[in-house]
């Protein structure tokens, strides 16, 4: 028992894809997913996506790293006070290096976390709309729609120059 959940169009040309997006959005289709072998800003713009929130993860990670660095160095030094080289127990200049490195480390890990959570990777199964060609030389546009809307969407896709239109069934 399969149910149609959308339709995917395969494009050979980037401008065709962009046109298809514009047509579909104009046609009231908002649940669109573009698939492309390379990243293109135009696609995001056409789809009207907002700026990625990954940078917030980076910022939070970085701040967390810095605080961890300072806390780690200062707290452990006070916890077991040992004098070395006549320096005070809390030798901030020496601790800056650790703080800096942890800022970077946590920032990078935060970024990675941001990427993984936002981009929904890793995933075990590829999407139903996926076609290996999308990683090679073809662009795809997956229109999420009900079975009633399939024909309209297909029309629009073809109209924009899709080489191939395929129904996606769940």
């Amino acid at each position: 028992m399969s149910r149609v959940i959308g339709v995917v169009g395969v494009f050979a040309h980037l401008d065709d894809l962009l046109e298809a997006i514009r047509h579909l959005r104009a046609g009231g289709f908002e649940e669109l997913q573009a698939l492309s072998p390379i990243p293109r800003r135009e696609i995001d713009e056409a789809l009207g996506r907002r700026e990625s929130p990954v940078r917030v993860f980076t910022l939070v990670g970085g701040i967390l790293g810095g605080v961890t660095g300072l806390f780690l160095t200062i707290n452990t030094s006070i916890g077991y006070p040992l004098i070395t080289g006549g320096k005070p127990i809390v030798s901030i200049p020496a601790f800056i290096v650790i703080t800096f490195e942890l800022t970077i480390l946590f920032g990078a890990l935060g970024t990675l976390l941001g990427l993984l959570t936002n981009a929904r990777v890793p995933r075990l199964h590829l999407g139903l709309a996926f076609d290996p060609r999308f990683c090679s030389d073809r662009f795809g546009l997956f229109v999420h729609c009900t079975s009633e809307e399939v024909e309209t969407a297909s029309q629009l896709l073809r109209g924009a120059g899709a080489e191939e239109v395929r129904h996606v069934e769940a």
Partner: protein
Amino acid sequence: MVTGHQLGYVQADRDLLKTMEPAGKLYYMLLLADVVVLLWGIYAWMTQIYTGLGVSGLTHPVMWAIYITNFVFWVGIAHSGTLISAILFLFRVRWRASVYRTAEAVTVFALMTAGLFPIVHLGRPWYFYWLLPYKQMGGLWPNFRSPLIWDVFAVFTYMIVSMVFFFTGLVPDMAVARDQAKGWRRLLYGFLAQGWQGTDRQWRHYTSAYLFLAALATPLVISVHSVVSWDFAMSMVPGWHSTIFAPYFVAGAIHSGLAMVITLLIPLRRVFRLDAYITQWHLENLAKLVILTGLIVGYSYVTEYFIAWYSDNTFEWESFRYRALGHYAWAFWIMIIFNSLIPLLFFIKRLRTSTPWLFGISILINIGMWFERFVIIVTSLAREYDPYSWGLYTPRWVDLSITAGSFAWFFLWFLLFAKFLPVISIVEVKEELPAPLKAGETG
């Protein structure tokens, strides 16, 4: 810019994935030779662990010698990868696309090699984990004032970030490979692709994350070799205790790293017939960067001597006099000539556009940069404050074997990389190609 014959996406896929096809006899012979050297190095290391560091040539007062030389050398090699992949990315330098994957791989493998040496050089390597930040016996933590702990943090962070960067960059390519591979390779690439499909959502977050990783990696790479240089500069050893060490080391690291990338790219390009992707133009750009770093390094050498002379400090001046004229003068002159004089040959366009010259000079720079670290470490320690404790270092078979083993270790990974991963980023090459438009124009 990728030039040559008319390239399309499919062509690029085909050309670049071809490097991953089953290897020939030459490859396996290389691999075998490499593994033999590696095993010999491991045997030497085991001997050292079992018998004690005394089997190496290390002695009083030269307590650090070629193990730390190797450490600094390999960390330095790592730097060019990040420079090319992160800094040039931020500056939107277009020629990076074809070379950055290899450079990044060099970074990761060089760090994997460098990371061994702090352990190799320990007197009791079985306690290396005491350097890690965790609560130890009696509630004691490591000493965060020690530059060696800074090193642990810096190198560890660098290793993690480089790997994240490397694998992140690899993911879309892995998707390409996955889709074209069969059997266990499909499984492997499928795993590495992590379910990549190239959706707009994935791409949007991916480009953002990649940008931030590059932005983080840039200060990181500068900090790492600065921290490594502080291993020396924070001490009070004449010849080490100098404020110019951080920039001097960073420049030196990039210098050696670029040379290593050239050294590796040239055979790679030839073996895999990638002339269309790694063109003379790419190599020339690398050579131009080498001129820059070579000039900085040469300037640093002069500055060091100037400071030593101008400070009128007996200890400092003796250290530098000894460098140029003492027992290790040969190493010093190798360093001066190979690192700062020979790269000036790249000012001649004919030489920097000639592959054999490029290859030869890049190897000389590698040698020169290795000796730079050797000279800094060994000559300074050999002549410190107390003349009664002056001494010499002569390497013995164990030190040399472990050093050889470390090169084998690095090349083992590089050989595997060359055969199992795309040595040129497919996606970024595609990005550089004209986008396919209906009008057939550049997008």
